[in-house]
């Protein structure tokens, strides 16, 4: 059971005053809320790490909470920020892999981007970018196989994946 807005705001206000018991309850409740928030945004094996990352961020930035304002939007903004940061790290990792062209089968982290409302986000990409990402990043084909399937050169497939993923990351970052 996740506490209501007023309770959470009161607990956070008390935590800022140094109330350890209130803080313990607040972080536990925030953890549950974050679990729900991230469940559809990251693969299950990354969920707990991300929740813990946000809990640490809450601790580091607790002085920025204004008790006269609602708590959950404050928490949601931090959660979104850490999530985008997480995606950026995944994207950097992905780019490196594409450049190396040797880790196509290891697609665990690719699921992160693939899960972010792909149908909607793909609408913003060109057809070639969407096809390249879909074949290589979702279906798991190699660059060469995707090249043969689409008729694009291998370099073009890489470029389309690279640019498409970058655009997706930007779209996710810009989304409120």
């Amino acid at each position, binding site marked *: 059971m996740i506490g209501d807005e007023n309770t959470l705001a009161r607990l956070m206000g008390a935590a800022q005053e140094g109330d350890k018991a209130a803080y313990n309850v607040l972080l536990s409740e925030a953890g549950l809320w974050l679990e729900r928030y991230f469940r559809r945004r990251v693969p299950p094996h990354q969920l707990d790490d991300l929740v813990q990352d946000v809990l640490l961020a809450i601790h580091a930035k607790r002085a920025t909470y204004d*008790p006269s304002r609602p708590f959950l939007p404050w928490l949601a903004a931090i959660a979104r920020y850490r999530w985008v940061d997480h995606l950026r790290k995944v994207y950097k990792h992905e780019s490196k892999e594409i450049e190396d062209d040797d880790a196509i089968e290891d697609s665990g982290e690719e699921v992160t981007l693939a899960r972010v409302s792909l149908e909607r986000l793909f609408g913003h990409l060109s057809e070639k970018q969407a096809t390249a990402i879909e074949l290589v990043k979702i279906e798991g084909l190699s660059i060469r196989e995707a090249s043969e399937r689409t008729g694009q050169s291998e370099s073009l497939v890489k470029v389309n994946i690279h640019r498409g993923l970058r655009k997706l990351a930007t779209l996710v970052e810009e989304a409120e």
Partner: protein
Amino acid sequence: MSKSRENIIAGLAEDLEPVRRITTSDGLLLVAFATLVAFAVSVFVFDFWYGMFEGQASAFFWITNGLVLLLGAASTLALVIGGSPRVGQRPNAPGWTAAMVAVLPIAAIISLIPGGHSHEGLNDPVAWLCTKSSLSAALLVGIASVLWLRRSAPVSLERSGWLTGIAAGALGTVAYGITCPLDSISHLGLWHTAPIAISAVVGRFVVPPLIRW
């Protein structure tokens, strides 16, 4: 809940110390103080232009510095508010104020068309002095803004970068502007707005890595 999360929560709660809340007025005061310092340094280096209070300043002088000051104030407010995590639509006062200030260089360029009223403009001998002096003053405001953002928790780094650059550029330009007796539209419209554009671009690229958390 996983054991490791339980341990983290227990550890954080155990280490909890009371904190002083960071408020919007803290940020505004810090940037305002840096702006005052920039004013003081400008006056110390270049001398205050008393002519503005003796009826010597043209309307362009007051309009330009007034609009640029408003841009600085709107950007600073947005910047400081952005240091507190929140979701939802953001007011776009800085965008509209920037659009108003953008009228100035357009007017300056039009005034440079042959047959216009202005005889200065691109050949302005003090253009570089005004630009670099404004940027130097902007640096002080920019440093204060970055210090504030590092203390707070900005969740949109790119936007914070733009706002820092615009606020610093605008307030720095006004800080220097009170010492500059050149008050034609071509001078003010070009060389008292260029530092804002330069500062905005610099802020966009330099600030985000400094405030990432």
